[in-house]
């Protein structure tokens, strides 16, 4: 407490410093945060709207306010700082400070509102709408948080506290200027296991395996509702706005009572809703009115606006139809959004459906289209390079490639068997030493000599399976255990830095030269991955290994010239994060151009 007291004294003397951009940790919470009170003068305020007790630590219960945003808001500082000085309260005078704290809370704290984006179909563009609206509101000075009660996706990320949530909520958090997304933003994550079951993750940790029946009959009416409620309430206490995302369509009337991802979540959060319809496949007016009209009246009245999304061609051509739709539903159409040509990570592997290649660059990268492909956003940074990414599902795709990437999977054993059945495994073996090959997570496991699954934890059949044998490594699934961790590492040969995260069952006994050395402060020097530079073989558990330019450039530089004119670099090798940020702005611009902003802001302010 002594240190804190001294720091607070220094802070009070320094005055309102606003953002401290020179700080190495800036922004520690959100873009534009006020850093005046790096140490909180009110600690411990013990107000549940700002923090909670961590129970039973070695020194008893400890008040934690690491998620508190209140103290970093301009209004708070602008009110509290002069008040402390006026009243002559000194650092360390907790009674005095608490009086000012209560005044400040009364004056500056208000509970957030929730707005929910529901979609007429599963790829209506809900996720991107939430991201776009979040970025628009960030520019207007709102502090927003994303929320999706239940997400079914194999595309997850690890938060800074080691919790697993859906990738797309992390992306939305980035759109909203948040630097520390956490599990509250996606408290239920369903990861399909490839059979009829899904692994259910609750608040970032494995909770259990459920099939459809048991999920809807046991989980949802059991713990489900409470999980949704407590997490969305947590966010409403801390943010101006919680931008919620529904799942699929809210009008699935056959399972209406069992759904906690759409209108029930809206009810629990008391959210106003915006319905998004993808115009691209046609029938959008029918989807919109059908969705609205199938909702029971008490849910229908939550829908305050309709967005017609992804219009190619002249949006004005939709206008007469939009007016007629609004008249018939009694709900305004608040946006006719042009198709935005942005490059952002995709939510579902379903988006791959039917797509064979992406990009038109000179280097053909075969990405094996594993049936249970997971964390496929790993390959997205390749799109920023001079590449054509081919989603390979036959041996020819592999043998004609300039480089091969074997991505992650929810089921390494079953997907390896698929590679053998399709002849892709043999095709990869014939390319050994001819083109660079990278395996990530499940793909890395497959590059080894054996997959040992004696208890059938991973595969359909227990046993040992021979794998590609590009490395001598052996991977074991000896117990039901999951490793979820964030990584920061350097290439061992000094090539540069990578950053990412690991999510996997199984352990790999590495018999190769390691690729990376960890730089996380508590794991410094730990070795990771495998490399055979002479054969251009690379393997790692680190998702996101291609995000930073260092390793991506190394991998692509191994591609032998094919006698073509060297393509000029489409963009400077950059941090993928900046690239994403630029695209989020582009997306927000497209939405702003097509939205009735006044109507939207009335919904935001709860005036509709």
């Amino acid at each position, binding site marked *: 407490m002594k240190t804190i007291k001294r720091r607070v004294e220094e802070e009070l003397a320094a005055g309102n410093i606003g953002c401290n951009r020179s700080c190495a940790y800036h922004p520690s919470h959100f873009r534009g945060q006020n850093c005046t009170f790096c140490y909180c003068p009110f600690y411990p305020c013990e107000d549940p709207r700002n923090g909670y007790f961590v129970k039973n630590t070695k020194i008893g219960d400890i008040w934690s306010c690491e998620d508190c945003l209140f103290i970093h808001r301009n209004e708070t500082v602008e009110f509290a700082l002069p008040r402390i000085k006026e009243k002559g309260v000194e650092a360390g005078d907790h009674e005095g400070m608490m009086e000012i704290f209560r005044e400040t809370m009364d004056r500056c704290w208000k509970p957030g509102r929730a707005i929910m984006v529901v*979609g*007429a*179909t*599963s*790829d209506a563009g809900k996720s991107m709408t939430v991201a776009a609206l979040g970025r628009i509101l960030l520019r207007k000075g709102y502090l927003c948080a994303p929320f999706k009660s239940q997400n079914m996706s194999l595309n997850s990320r690890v938060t800074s506290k080691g919790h697993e949530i859906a990738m797309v909520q992390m992306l939305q958090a980035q759109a909203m200027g948040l630097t520390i997304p956490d599990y509250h933003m996606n408290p239920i994550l369903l990861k399909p296991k490839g059979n009829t079951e899904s692994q259910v993750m609750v608040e970032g940790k494995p909770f259990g395996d459920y099939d*459809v029946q048991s999920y809807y009959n046991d989980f949802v009416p059991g713990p489900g509702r409470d999980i949704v409620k407590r997490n969305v309430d947590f966010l409403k206490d801390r943010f101006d706005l919680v931008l919620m995302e529904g799942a*699929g*369509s809210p*009008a*699935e*009337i*056959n*399972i209406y009572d069992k759904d906690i991802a759409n209108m029930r979540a809206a009810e629990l959060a008391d959210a106003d809703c915006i319905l998004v319809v993808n115009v*691209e*496949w*046609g*029938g*959008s*007016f*029918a*989807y*919109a*009115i*059908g*969705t609205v*009209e*199938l909702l029971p009246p008490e849910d229908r009245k939550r829908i305050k606006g309709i967005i017609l999304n992804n219009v190619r*061609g*002249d949006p004005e*051509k*939709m*206008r*007469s*139809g*939009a007016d*007629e*739709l609004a008249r*018939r539903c009694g709900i305004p159409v608040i946006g006719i959004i042009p198709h935005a040509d942005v490059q952002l990570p995709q939510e579902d592997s379903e988006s791959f459906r*039917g*797509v*064979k290649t992406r990009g038109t660059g000179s280097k053909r990268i075969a990405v094996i289209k594993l049936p249970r492909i997971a964390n496929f956003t790993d390959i997205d940074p390749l799109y920023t390079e001079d590449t054509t990414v081919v989603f390979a599902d036959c041996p020819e795709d592999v043998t004609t490639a300039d480089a091969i990437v074997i991505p992650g999977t929810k089921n390494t054993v079953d997907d390896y068997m698929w590679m053998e059945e399709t002849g892709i495994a043999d095709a990869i073996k014939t390319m050994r030493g001819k083109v660079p090959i990278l395996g990530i997570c499940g793909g890395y496991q497959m590059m080894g000599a054996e997959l040992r699954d004696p208890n059938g934890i991973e595969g359909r059949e227990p046993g040992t399976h021979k794998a590609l044998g590009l490395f001598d490594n052996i991977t074991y699934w000896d117990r039901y255990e999951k490793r979820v961790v964030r990584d920061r590492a350097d290439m061992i040969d000094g090539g540069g830095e990578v950053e990412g995260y690991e999510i996997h069952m199984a352990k790999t006994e590495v018999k190769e030269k390691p690729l990376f050395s960890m730089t996380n402060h508590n794991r410094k020097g730990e070795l990771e991955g495998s490399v055979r530079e002479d054969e251009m073989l690379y393997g790692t558990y680190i998702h996101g290994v291609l995000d930073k330019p260092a390793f991506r450039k190394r991998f692509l530089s191994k591609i032998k010239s094919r006698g073509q004119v060297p393509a000029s670099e489409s963009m400077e090798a950059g941090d993928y994060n900046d690239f994403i940020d630029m695209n989020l702005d582009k997306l927000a611009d497209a939405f702003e151009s097509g939205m009735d902003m006044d109507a939207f802001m009335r919904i935001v302010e709860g005036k509709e």
Partner: protein
Amino acid sequence: MKSLLFLGTSSGAGKTTLDAAFCRYLARKGVKVAPFKASNLSLNSYVTLGGEEIGMGQAFQAWASGLEPTGDMNPVLLKPSGPGRMQVVLRGKPYMDIDRDSAMDRKAVMEKACESYDKLLAQYDAVICEGSGSPAELNLMDTDMANVGMMRARNVTSILVADIERGGVFAAIYGTWMLIPEEVRPLLKGFVINRFRGDASILAPGIERIEELTGMKCYGIVPYEVLKFPEEDSMSDNGGAIGNGDIHKEFVANLDKLIDSAIEAGVDFEGIEKLLAQ
């Protein structure tokens, strides 16, 4: 008069395929059947033996019916040729180019399309028509030919194909039904749900509710089949290549597989056949 129109809740709902499957089903029973689509927006065209250009979908439907494709099966083919520009192919021959400034005489073109339809109806026991896109495009309702256009011009009994793959299928069916103009709505007799995976019993309460709300009948749930069909729609990117070998035979074999699995899943082809007489 024996005809039936397959409408879809969106592009890619499976109209072309289910229309072809129904043609094949009738042809297997010995019915003399021909396909028809009043107007088609596609760059994927086929040239008939008579040198007429028609949509690829109708060519395949013709083969499913055991026929050689003819120009009457797709009297209007619209081929986008640039931003806001299209070539109009009428009964297989280039007719005119339209753009923002020069519109086509829709009424005259529709009359020609109807003549083709009448001709097929006189020649065959049954004409199985296909709609285009969604019939519920509020902004296009007045210019529609293949959907509401045919319902208005020739009172064709209709059935709606709804794609469940993207979700929102009940909203799509109910919304489409609601937005079809009242004067032709009674022609819409039923619907089928296409591309379903899993245990169909889970859908029952939703289907009952839609039947109750609309008076339409559900003629079945078509299971998802991985079929490599040619893509008629310029927007789809399914790389619909059929492997090597005889493309027609493979296509028809594909249809047989689809029909068999649909019948096994309880799709009421006989019920749909009865709609023909109405």
